[in-house]
């Protein structure tokens, strides 16, 4: 595909993905509300929030680094998304997946978080650095099993190319890495809990401890930018997990369902648990998930 149509299609796809992220966000609020025994806000509430954030005044400025935080964050999120192929064999929805590999994706994931951390740290409010330190410790912890899982898959395929990993899973459901390499999957899906920052791993922005953590001084347009970035990142991550473990998707419908299913895994856990303290969550990730990750790598070697 030519570059410019590709850019156009990717931007369109990104736009749709962000909207889908918003809807999923609304849906999750609904579902969370249901288990709590209430109706919850309307499905389109994230859009209204977004609109509201855009029409409110900003009243504070903590310097340009602070302002750049959400931009890093959204660039990171979008970077992840544009590097994943959403539908197999559909070049218009494949983004730039042929131009980058898993390592670049993970770089973007780190990049967003680190940029955010840098920006938030500039806010001056003690909640921000505390939240940042919590977030970074937890991130380092869950990256461990996640990287092990990715390494296991990459070792299996012999490449960090995501299209190659997808290609190995096209021999029926059982060939999905979810079943082909359950240990790596377990490691990755447990790490996903940490990535999505639902309970019990939502220590970063815990409202009852350090209200909204790193984002404590962000408001309005900054927040709206962060919402966009988070939405793109969430969909990007889900698509990545879909590609890595659920064999990708052959149609848009399948992608929608699989993304939702993967996302709901963390909601399913998050609704019923309180949160861990930082050191507990670090300890958690470095224990069973890491063990699973190591087992996944070993399994790959053994299968080979």
């Amino acid at each position: 595909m030519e570059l410019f149509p590709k850019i156009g299609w990717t931007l369109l796809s990104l736009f749709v993905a962000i909207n889908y992220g918003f809807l999923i966000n609304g849906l999750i609020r609904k579902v969370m509300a249901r288990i709590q025994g209430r109706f919850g806000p309307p499905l389109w509430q994230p859009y209204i929030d977004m609109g509201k954030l855009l029409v409110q005044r900003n009243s504070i400025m903590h310097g340009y680094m602070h302002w750049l935080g959400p931009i890093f964050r959204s660039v990171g999120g979008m970077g992840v998304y544009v590097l994943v192929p959403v539908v197999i064999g559909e070049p218009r929805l494949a983004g730039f997946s042929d131009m980058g590999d898993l390592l670049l994706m993970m770089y973007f994931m780190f990049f967003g978080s680190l940029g955010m951390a840098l920006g938030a740290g500039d806010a001056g409010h003690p909640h921000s650095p505390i939240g940042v330190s919590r977030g970074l410790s937890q991130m380092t912890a869950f990256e461990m099993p996640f990287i092990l899982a990715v390494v296991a898959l990459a070792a299996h395929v012999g490449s960090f190319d995501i299209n190659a990993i997808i290609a190995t899973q096209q021999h029926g459901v059982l060939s999905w890495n979810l079943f082909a390499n359950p240990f790596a999957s377990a490691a990755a899906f447990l790490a996903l809990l940490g990535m999505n920052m639902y309970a019990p791993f939502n220590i970063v922005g815990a409202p009852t401890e350090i209200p909204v953590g790193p984002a404590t001084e962000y408001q309005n347009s900054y927040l709206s930018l962060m919402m966009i970035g988070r939405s793109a990142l969430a969909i990007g991550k889900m698509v990545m997990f879909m590609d890595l473990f659920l064999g990708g998707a052959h149609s848009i419908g399948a992608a929608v369902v699989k993304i939702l299913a993967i996302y709901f895994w963390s909601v399913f856990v998050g609704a019923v648990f309180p949160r861990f303290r930082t050191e507990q969550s670090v300890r958690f990730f470095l224990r069973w998930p890491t063990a699973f990750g190591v087992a996944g790598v070993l399994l790959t070697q053994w299968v080979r």
Partner: protein
Amino acid sequence: MKKFDPDRPWDLTTLPTTMAPQGSRPHAPVEDQCFLGAEADIKQPPKLQEAVATIKNWFRASSLNVLAFGTGCGAIELRPLSTSRFDMSRFGIPGAPTPRQSNVFIISGYLSVKTLTRVIRCYEQMPDPKWVVALGSCTINGGMYWDSYNTIKVLDLYLPVDVYVSGCMPRPEALIAGFQYLMDDVKKGKANGWHHYLENLEWYRENQKQVITDWDLPNYNW
């Protein structure tokens, strides 16, 4: 427009026509300035301006983040309101943990002088436009603490109030009705206590300093 009457500071229909009071930051103009519209600079037809204002106000009214600050007794009814039984989030009213991200300040009853200092601080940290909902008798005329040495009696001498919800304490249902009232006002563009506060900052500051003896707040509002 009626003349601003210092004896009736709570009468928000008497907005003075002067510009922002002395001491306020130059970039806090009276015009509505936000990410989506530094429209004061752009010459737009009035019809369009009106339509844009309507849309903006609709967005503002439909997503009211309530600052989590239980200033008084009334805070106990905010819990049922925000949890399953009354579920205020279905009306688009979630809680917000920090003043930077909230739009509505619920003054849930009496304010001791010590709390008033914090309330003013939090109020000024909130981004404009922002609204104050005052609960119960205490905010109107002192309530049952009318002769207490440590509580203020008339809230609107110190902060602009957009909606009063009567009752001691108001039930969650009354609070929901209060929010609906506030939403209506916001949609119509009537609830502009924040604007009033900016314009009469000196007057408010003077009142605030009368009761707060240890004054360490800045004299401008940003």
